[in-house]
């Protein structure tokens, strides 16, 4: 357990992460408030935008700059899918088009399905106040 906590809490990387993530969330909040898009559409827009920016190679710079501030928002999920597809194409050609994206995001998807199901099972039936 020899973790260097000074590296873990290095303030400049945390600050960059905080500000970048905050700005991405502000973009989402403006979309919610100023347009009549449903949350589902906004999530789709963010994932697709992330995949396109990832494919164009632009999002990589944001990830290098902000770390988790760029990968944790859903744009990062899209970026991860696109990056996985490209890397797998480099490794194994055409088949990589289909295996790469999901392979890269497999951990997140599997966790979301499993924990999502488990959490729904333990949840109490919803009691609506109002």
């Amino acid at each position, binding site marked *: 357990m020899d973790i260097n906590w000074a590296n*873990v809490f290095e303030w400049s990387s945390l600050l960059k992460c905080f500000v970048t993530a*905050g700005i991405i969330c502000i973009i*989402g909040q403006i979309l919610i408030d100023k347009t009549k898009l449903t949350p589902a559409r906004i999530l789709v827009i963010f994932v697709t935008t992330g995949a396109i920016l990832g494919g164009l*190679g632009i999002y990589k710079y944001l990830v290098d700059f902000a770390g988790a501030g760029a990968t944790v928002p859903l744009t990062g999920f899209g970026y991860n*899918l696109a990056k996985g*597809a490209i890397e*797998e194409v480099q490794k194994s050609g055409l088949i990589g088009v289909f295996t790469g994206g999901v392979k890269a995001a497999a951990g997140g998807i599997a966790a979301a399905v499993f924990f999502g199901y488990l959490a729904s099972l333990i*949840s109490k039936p919803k009691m609506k106040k109002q």
Partner: protein
Amino acid sequence: MDPLETKQTYQNYVDKKSPNSPILKNCFNAFWVGGLICTIGQVILNICKERGFDTQISGTIVSIILIGISAFLTGLNLFNKIGKFAGAGSLIPITGFANSIVSPAMEYKSEGYVMGVGGKMFTVAGPVLVFGISASIIVGIIYLIFNTQSITLV
């Protein structure tokens, strides 16, 4: 009251009646909650890197932990309170993806554990996966065809 005949008059009526959301306050809350969630992710990421995992694995671990936490917070009805306060701040990070799986599943629990919970889980997450995965396949095809670093710099 007169029936609202055209879409336009209906829209005007809705705009008049719906309260103006204080966008500045919403943005501020979204900013710091979203920032905080991702900063927690960054701390987990740094811990993983300190323990010698590579970047790809560390990122996956961060996603799994954040998804797990927010799924169970949604199950306990706590996440909705954060969501009401923070808006996009909790929706846009990967936590919102987990929340979008659990909340419809909870709602349709009464319809059974297979078609109710298992089916409705993907009401929102389904489209996200469809468009995300399709976009990644298109990116892969474009890369396969042009296969140059100038098109894709990744």
